[in-house]
């Protein structure tokens, strides 16, 4: 039996005036997967999700949700989707219980079923004690969870989550991850956006990296990290003047250039595996280069970006630089 993809989009475009917030993105999400869209502020993640969720008109390209054309049949599309936006979209004037009940009723769930589902969801999300409190008394984490619960009341087969854990503390974040995993175990498909590499890494089966409205890479977390190196060795040289020599040592050893910041005498080296760090350190000592501090870290989103786009997340110079970089398009 041929099954349909949960999301299939080709050449999505959204312009605000002259500015292309989403500039020809293809997206393919299979049923039952968690698909992560990773990108810095302003990359176009929210805009893309909103187009897929019928909240913004699609300016170019086409999109299908479970085979339903989003542009032609928005009403059907909406029945297949639960959307949890980047900013809380629950009613401040109502209690948690009333919110869930209302969203159920608005989607044709009977009053009784709606009440039962609301109670069940509030329990599942650890909100039953706050069920009858006004939302204005909720913490950010509680609001976020209620927001997600509100998207689940009709058990839609596809869920969009726009930055589900931004602003959450580490424990609440972990809980949110568990909840998302449970959803998928229950048969849901999840499309989520995030600014955090580790979140995409923890959750997603596949990741698309978005930058300035374009998809610059796509693959499994392993494939993406392999392209950047799994870890980063951060060094500070005793004598900044040694940098050129040190860079040469690294290049000879690993076949790749380290990232230098001349002012501070700092040097970052991307490593395929963390144990290569020892090799680098030994080679540097053999070359007589002094080191004041050393650490081995996971690559940050900045480094992934630097590697994938040739510019860092904050910088907005020459976009054409993005074209010439490591491509990691995974054949499907």
């Amino acid at each position: 039996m041929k099954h349909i993809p949960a999301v299939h989009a080709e050449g999505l475009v959204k312009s605000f005036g002259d500015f292309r917030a989403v500039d020809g993105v293809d997206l393919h999400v299979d049923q039952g997967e968690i698909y992560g869209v990773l990108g810095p502020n302003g990359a176009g993640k929210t805009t893309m999700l909103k187009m897929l969720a019928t909240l913004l008109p699609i300016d170019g390209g086409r999109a299908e949700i479970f085979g339903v054309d989003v542009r032609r049949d928005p009403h059907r599309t909406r029945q297949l989707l639960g959307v949890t936006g980047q900013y809380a979209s629950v009613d401040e004037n109502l209690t948690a219980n009333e919110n869930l009940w209302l969203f159920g009723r608005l989607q044709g769930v009977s009053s009784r079923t709606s009440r039962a589902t609301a109670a069940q969801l509030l329990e599942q999300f650890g909100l039953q004690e706050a069920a009858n409190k006004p939302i204005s008394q909720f913490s950010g984490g509680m609001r976020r969870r209620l927001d997600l619960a509100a998207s689940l009341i009709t058990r839609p087969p596809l869920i969009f989550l726009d930055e589900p854990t931004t602003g959450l503390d580490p424990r609440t974040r972990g809980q949110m991850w568990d909840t998302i995993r449970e959803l998928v175990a229950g048969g849901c498909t999840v499309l989520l956006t995030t600014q955090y590499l580790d979140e995409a890494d923890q959750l997603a089966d596949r990741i698309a990296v978005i930058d300035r409205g374009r998809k610059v890479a796509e693959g499994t977390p392993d494939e993406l990290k392999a392209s950047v190196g799994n870890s980063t060795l951060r060094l500070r040289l005793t004598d900044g003047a040694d940098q050129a020599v040190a860079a040469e040592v690294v290049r000879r050893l690993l076949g790749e250039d380290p990232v230098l910041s001349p002012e501070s005498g700092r040097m970052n080296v991307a490593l395929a595996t963390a144990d290569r760090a020892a090799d680098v350190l030994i080679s540097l000592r053999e070359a007589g280069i002094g080191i004041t501090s050393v650490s081995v870290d996971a690559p940050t989103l900045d480094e992934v970006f630097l590697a994938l786009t040739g510019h860092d997340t904050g910088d907005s110079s020459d976009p054409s630089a993005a074209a010439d970089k490591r491509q990691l398009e995974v054949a499907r």
Partner: protein
Amino acid sequence: MTLQMTQPAPAATPRRLTPGDVAARTTSHNSLRETLSQTMSMAWRATKKMRRNPEQFFDVTIQPLLFTAMFAYLLGGGLSGSVEAYLPLVIPGILAQTALTACMATGVQLREDMEKGVFDRFKSLPMARIAPLAGPMIADLLRYAIASTLTFVTGIAMGYRPGGGVAGVAMAIVLTMIAGWSLAWVFTWVGTLARSAQSVQGISMMIMFPLTFMSNALVPVETLPGWLAAFVKVNPVSYIVTATRDLANDGQITGHVGWALVACAAVIAIFAPLSVRSYKRHL
């Protein structure tokens, strides 16, 4: 921190949707029954909101008291010889005026509401696009009822004796509610159109003042110059005021009542589709 690969445990072969499942799960549009039920749910939401923000009732409680007393004492002597003689003329007028002010608030509140995050969710739901607009307007019927009852109570306290009796007054109140609901579509349209709640307020004022003052609400048409009388005669508010006078003062369902209802229907027929269209464009 180290990266570790913890992929979610593979689910117990979750069921996959086929095109047939998708067709079975979804409908191509909301039925009339669904639309009504969604509208009533949105009305329920609006009443909850009213109950939690009682200051929303200020305009419909203070204004009838204030305006009735103010206009009656201010204009009564000059226009009708005495306050008592002026009351049968001015009470129906103030009724219409208060209803208009109350429905102006409908537009402003809709605009404020639409800026809240929860409207993003409403838009993402497979809900009829008229429901978020019509729902609060149904809840606002309560406001029109309060405003018109209070206007009559104030008038009666000042010596007004409506000739239509209880039945006439009750029918006048119902007509005011119908008129309020219809005219509210004008302000709802402005609400979906304007950029901010403040500009809704401003634009609505510019609509409301000519509609109320350039009508027969406060003065008899005969006293007006020709060009003004011409506008006053086509103003839907004039139809409503005349009809209300017939009901409250004479207890008679006259042709004016019929024309008032036609005027209301015309306002809805024009502004309801405009509002829905402009609301959709907001997406």
